[in-house]
Every structure is written in structure tokens, then in C-alpha cells.
């Protein structure tokens, strides 16, 4: 009898231990696809949610979206406040993007605003966080998406594609932000979105990255600068590279494979970093082709590309060092991982030390294919 009672009890317990047993009808929820965080005139948070408008969506017109805005002293308060206008519960499981106003990022930092999203059980940790290049983050949600009426999902598509198409920025997910902010010797960069005007329509467009010192934003980096910093971060998986030749013509290569090996040397209290870039590429476009393509040309061109990469990457790194941006290239993390003891010594004033580090870039380029058909 006792045994039976025990079995019965044990089999009933799981019901109370599980967190997901509440019935939630689809008609009781408002699907949030993305949200923008701004400040209102009273210095409260102003959240703008892009939600699916189920009443206006149908087979003929496709999916329609609408916006819900709310205010609150904290993020949660603002989320709850939204129920005043949207009667049903805001549902974050299908939310894909958070747009943060650059002023909030600069003045308040990310820790304060991301806390709610990490704690909430419905928000995915793979949600993408971007910085608004516009003054008003919510204005990005008013733009028009090409081939996708949901602007948040359009932005998601652009970000997911960036690392192997044009290298203008990088993809950062919510959990990565937490890892980087709490990690050793690494700083955050986030993608930046702007609006572009084409005739009457406004579209969203990726305009580079925002560099962070700790959790506060420092400055914007342009798309071109970001591109070469990605080589240092070993985040390049593909994409095209426009190589400017001496005669002002262009050689466009497509990166087929890229691997950056980061190494360092610590001697006499001096740090020197080596970036060994191994790149395989295809020639895709030559704007001023004079010479016949043969082995000699390929060798020359490889050298040219190597020189070009070396210059550009070193230039970009120099620039961020001069501007006082902290270690977004994660050099400190490299030391932390290989020589933790050394890191303990360097850690203290790493942010300052980073700007004095000497970097040597050694690219090795192989042209695999010239796509040339006589």
C-alpha cells in the first residue's frame, strides 16, 4: 500500500514541476515580430512593438503588420503597459529583433535594457540585437521591406546573410551579448541599421557597426571599416572584396575560404600580435583588363591583393586604436585563453594597453579560379 502511494505521488509530482502546461489559445496572444527601444520626453522607456495584424492579414493582401507603443519606467513596465492598447498578451517567442536607440546605448548601456529579455521565458536567446542609426529607433519599423512586409524579419534576413555576402557588419545574438559583456578581454560590436530613401519609399539598410566600450556604445564604424575588422575577428566566411588597383581600376574577388590565425608575442613588456590570413578567392570582375590572364598575372595579382589587405586591415586597426575604442578584436581573450597567468597581469589596464599594441598582418592569398572564359 505504501509503495503504491509512493508511486502515485511520484507520478503526480511531474505535473507541478513542469513550467509549460498552461493553455494559451492562439487568439489570446499578439505575435510580436520585433521591437524598438526609445526614450520619451519624460525620460521613460518608449517601446514600439511590431505585431502581426491578424484581422488585416489574408490570402490576397498577405501578412499585415501594425504597431503598438507603450511607455514605462522599466522595460517590463512598458511591456505590461502595452496591454492597455493591445488587449491580448504580447507573445515574444517569435520575436526576432530588438532595435536599440543609439542614445540609450551610449548613455545607459545595454545591461539595463537587456536584463528583462534574458529573464523572460518566452524570449529566444537567439534574438538579434541591433543599434538604430536613426535618431528614433521606432522609425526603422516604419520603413518598407522589400519582398517581406514584416520589417523585423526583413532586418533579420539582412543580418543573417551579411557574413557571407557583403561583410558590412556582423550578426550578434542576445546570448552572445551576455557572453561578451561578461567575458574576459573582449568588447562588443553590434550591427547598425539606417533608413535609405528611394523615391517615395523608405527602406532599411545595414550601415556598419557600433563599437562598445563595456556595455556603453562608443562610436559608429562604417561598413568599409567593419569589413576589414571582420578579418581580424575571423568572422569572414565568404563575401566579395573590392580591391582598388594602382591605376584606379577595380578588381573584385569573391572569398571562397578564409581562416585567420591570431598569434602574439610578449617580450620585454611589449605585445605584438600577428594575424595570419589564409584566403582562397575567385576573381569575379576586372574593370580594366589589359593583360592576358596567365600564371604570371595570377602571381602578381595575388601579391597585389595581399598588399591591399595588409594595408586596409592595419589601417582599420590603427584607427580604432587611435579613437580609444577598447578591445573589440578580442585580442585580450586570446591571451586569456592561451596564457591565463599572463592575462592576470595584463588585465588591469588592458583597455589602455590595447591602443598601444603593435599588429602585423600577414595575408596569404590564393586565387583558385579566374572565371575566365576567353
Amino acid at each position: 500500500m505504501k509503495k503504491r502511494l509512493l508511486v502515485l505521488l511520484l507520478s503526480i509530482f511531474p505535473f507541478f514541476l513542469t513550467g509549460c502546461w498552461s493553455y494559451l489559445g492562439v487568439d489570446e496572444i499578439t505575435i510580436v515580430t520585433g521591437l524598438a527601444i526609445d526614450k520619451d520626453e519624460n525620460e521613460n522607456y518608449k517601446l514600439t512593438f511590431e505585431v502581426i495584424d491578424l484581422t488585416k492579414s489574408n490570402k490576397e493582401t498577405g501578412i499585415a503588420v501594425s504597431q503598438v507603443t507603450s511607455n514605462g519606467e522599466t522595460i517590463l513596465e512598458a511591456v505590461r503597459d502595452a496591454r492597455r492598447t493591445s488587449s491580448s498578451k504580447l507573445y515574444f517567442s517569435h520575436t526576432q529583433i530588438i532595435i536599440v536607440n543609439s542614445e540609450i546605448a551610449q548613455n545607459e548601456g545595454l545591461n539595463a535594457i537587456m536584463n528583462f529579455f534574458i529573464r523572460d521565458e518566452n524570449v529566444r536567446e537567439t534574438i538579434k540585437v541591433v543599434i538604430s542609426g536613426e535618431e528614433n529607433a521606432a522609425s526603422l519599423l516604419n520603413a518598407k521591406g522589400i519582398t517581406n512586409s514584416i520589417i523585423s524579419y526583413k532586418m533579420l534576413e539582412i543580418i543573417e546573410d551579411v557574413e557571407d555576402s557583403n561583410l558590412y557588419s556582423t550578426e550578434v545574438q542576445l546570448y552572445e551579448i551576455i557572453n561578451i559583456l561578461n567575458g574576459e578581454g573582449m568588447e562588443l560590436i553590434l550591427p547598425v541599421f539606417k533608413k535609405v530613401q528611394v523615391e517615395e519609399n523608405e527602406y532599411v539598410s545595414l550601415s556598419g557597426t557600433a563599437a562598445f566600450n563595456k556595455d556603453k556604445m562608443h562610436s559608429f564604424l562604417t561598413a568599409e571599416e567593419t569589413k576589414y575588422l571582420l578579418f581580424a575577428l575571423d568572422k569572414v566566411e565568404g563575401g566579395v572584396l573590392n580591391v582598388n588597383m594602382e591605376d584606379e581600376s577595380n578588381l573584385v574577388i569573391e572569398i571562397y575560404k578564409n581562416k585567420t590565425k591570431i598569434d602574439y608575442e610578449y617580450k620585454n613588456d611589449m605585445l605584438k600580435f600577428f594575424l595570419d590570413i589564409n584566403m582562397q578567392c575567385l576573381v569575379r570582375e576586372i574593370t580594366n583588363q589589359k593583360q592576358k590572364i596567365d600564371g604570371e598575372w595570377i602571381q602578381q595579382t595575388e601579391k597585389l591583393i595581399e598588399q591591399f589587405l595588409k594595408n586596409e586591415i592595419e589601417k582599420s586597426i590603427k584607427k580604432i586604436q587611435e579613437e580609444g575604442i577598447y578591445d573589440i578584436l578580442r585580442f585580450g581573450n586570446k591571451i586569456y585563453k592561451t596564457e591565463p597567468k599572463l592575462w592576470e597581469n595584463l588585465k588591469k589596464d588592458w583597455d589602455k594597453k590595447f591602443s598601444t599594441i603593435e599588429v602585423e598582418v600577414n595575408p596569404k592569398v590564393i586565387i583558385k579560379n579566374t572565371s575566365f572564359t576567353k
Partner: protein
Amino acid sequence: MLLGIFNKNKFNKKLENSIKEFNNDLSKYKLSKKIDENLKLLKSIFKNNENLKIRKIVNSSNPKIFCYIVFMNGMIDPKIINDNIIKSFSTENLKGKKNIFDTVLTETMQVNELKKSEDVRQIVEAIASGDTVLLLDKEKKVIILNTRGYDYRSISEPESEKILAGPREGFTESLIVNISLLQRKFRTPQLKTKYMGIGKTTNTNVCVCYIESVVNKDVLNEVFRRLKKIDIDAVLDSNYLLELIDDKNYSPFARVHTSERPDVIVGKLLEGRVAILVDGTPVVLTVPLLFIENFQSPEDYYLRADYSSIARIIRIIGFFLTICTPAFYVAVESFHQEMIPTALFINMAIEREGAPLPTSLEIIVMLIIFELLKETGIRMPTKVGDALSIVGALVIGQAAVEAELVAAPMLIVVGITGISSLLVPKLNSSVIIYRFLILTFTIFLGFLGFILGLSIMIINILNQKSFGVSQVERMESWNPQDIKDQIIRRGWRNMVKRPGYLTNNEIRQGKNR
């Protein structure tokens, strides 16, 4: 409560009395030497049955020698009675024969099967089943002659088990014909048949068939034990026996296999199973039933092995689909929306917009409507059935969605459920019960309930035994030969042995190469 016990006792007493009355009725009678009394006795036993015919036949050589034949009209073949009994008896020269009874028994009667009897019970049984009883004067015994002959449906392909390849014959309602359909496949003395009568009022002929060399003796004894314990007034179909010999168990999964095809039954016999044939029905039972048999089709053995295996896998998928789809839909749609791909979820949400009922209620209503349609469709004549399916599809399908009474994804779910339920006709009843059970659990607990319900079903299946043989062989007892005809059917060359859990005589074939 007390009243109930009292009534039960009273009922039991009544039952006992009626049984006693019935049994004593015949055993208390004895034949006498006087033919008139014997006739009177038979007449009184078959009182008020005008089908009973009695005819006097006089021998032409000596008018003092005569006999009576008694038979049941409609159950006999008149040609045998005319030519082989009446004609023989009247023309035979019986003058001066010392023992007329023996002469008639051995010489006069030109009937294939005959015997003498004194047992009134046996005589009555014989008359009732179409035999003719011949009574002679001054004899305390009678001759029973086989004159059975009545019309039965001819052999045709069973409607419920149509297949594309393989034999087209099916059982009929006649037990003798059915046995012959089995016997035809054996040109050896291996097939054994044991007859018994079951049913106090009908005394239906039941035959237990098995193959001596391969049958599992434990199962065979168990079958006889359970059959002998049956105490019922009538057996009109094999399902009566199926329920009466079944294990006492609330599980909805069958433990006895039924088929109308002789080839299927012989196949089962050859693996060591026992078949039970009942007079008056084409449905034959075999035990024990392994769970995988629900997914086996006779066609599996008449088509290429690889094709059969694919078909079998599809049937198994269909089984789980028809049980799980509604519950899975409810779990995902109402509890775990984060699981659905975003684009699909948005489309589902759009479709659901404006639907008046909550998903859980909607799905129950739709499933019940589907069962209604299915049930009416089965019982209808073909032409009405066609009209019905059009109305069903139009009314339930299009109109309901256009009027925004139900959401479109729901129709897809019910459609998948319905179509896949047709894949495993043998499991239809159990499928419905578990579909609603798992659905109910899911409506209250989401995926937790879904897994809970599914676990109950799987534990149920794994725990089941049919006549002492567990229906799903456990991992520890698996040997490679046993699983060659489970989810995947191997070619005949590979199935060297019979499944070890059905028989002790395992070797099926020698080297075929």
C-alpha cells in the same frame, strides 16, 4: 446493494435450472423396441416444428418389412433420399434375411456415411443438422445417414480483405466448405481438425485446426480449455467466441486475429498458431496474435519483400499519425507556439482569427463529425455512400471554413487523421479510443499530457499477452530470425526459421541455394 445480490442469486438459480432442464430433456429419453413409440418420442421432441418430415417405406419383397425415415426438410439433399434410401430400401430383397438391421446398415443403404445409434441426444442432433434417421421395427437402435445438403454462398473474394496479388478465394458460411479450403492446401496428413459443439440452443459446430508438428502445445491446450469453459446459448459468429475466449482485460487492442482468407489462415497455422472456425460465418480466428500482425497484409507475402517492407513501415507511421496528429496539433497550437516555425505559425494564427470555438473544443467536434460521416458511409449502400461523401466533403470542408466556423488547419489535421486511420483497419477501434484519450490528456496538460497518453498506450501494447505469448517481443529475447518478419519483411530465402516465440519447431526451410 442487497437487492442486487439477491437478484443475482435468484438469476443464477434460474440459470442453473434451465441448464439442467435442457440437458436432462434429451438424456432422460430412451429408445424402445416399439417403432411407434420411438416415432412418437421424436415427434414430441420436435413438437411444433413442421419442418420435420416422416415417411414410411415398405419393402417390395415383403410388405411386412417396413421402415420410417425422419429428416428435416430443407436441410437435406432430396436426391440422396430418393435414390439411395427410398429406392434402395423398397427394391432390396430383404425376404428371409435374419438380421434386417445389419443388412440394411451394411448392404441396402447406398450412402457415404452412416452409423447406428441408440443415443437420443445424438439422433436429435443428427436430424437437426440435416442427417436422415432410419427407424426399423423392433429395434432399439436407429441408423443415421448423411444426407446433408443445403445451399450456401459460393466461394468469392472477401469484400473486407481485397488485395491486388495472390489468391482470390475467401471463406463461406459453411464450415465444411471452409475446412476443405484449408485442407486443399495440404496434401499431407499434417492438418488436424477437432470439432466441438458450442451453444446450448444452437449447438454450433466449431472446429479447431492446427498443424501437429509446429503447433505450440501450451497455446493449443489453452484454446481447448477456454473453449470448453464457454457456456452460452448461441454462437452466431466467431466474434462471440473471440470475446468469450479473450483474456479479461480492458485494453482496446485485439488479442485474437480474424481473417476471411484461407491463405492467411494457412500462413498463420504454418507459424504454429491455432485456428478456430465457426459454422455459419466466414470469419476465422487465429491465436496467438502478435502486435505486428495488425500491420501485416496478405499481400506482403505475394509482392517483393522490399516493397512490402516499405508498405509496412507506412502502415506503422499511419498508425501513429492517426492517433497522435490531433493531440500533437493541440499541444503545439495551444501550449507550445514557440515550437512552430514562424512563417507557419503566423499563417496558422491568421487562419484561426475569427474562429469561434477554442482549438480543443473545435478538434473534438470535428473528430466526432468525422466519425459520424465514416460510420454512415460504411453502412450505406454504395451509391448513397458516394453522395454522402460529397455532401460530407462540401459541408464539413468548404462551407465550414468559408463560414468561419472552423479553422482551415483543423480540417487538414482531421483529414490526415482520417486518411491514416484507413491504413490499419485491424486497429480501428483501439485507435479511436487512444486518439481521444491522448487528446484529452493533451488538452489539459499540453505536451506533457501528450507524452503521458502516448506512454500509457505504449506500455499497454508492450504489456499485452495473447494466450500466454507476449504480443511485442522484448529486446532481450530477440534473435535475428524472430525479427525478419516484423517491421521489415525479409525475403523468403532469409526467413529460414519460424518465429521462436510461436513454436518450438523452428526450422522452416533448408538451404535453397
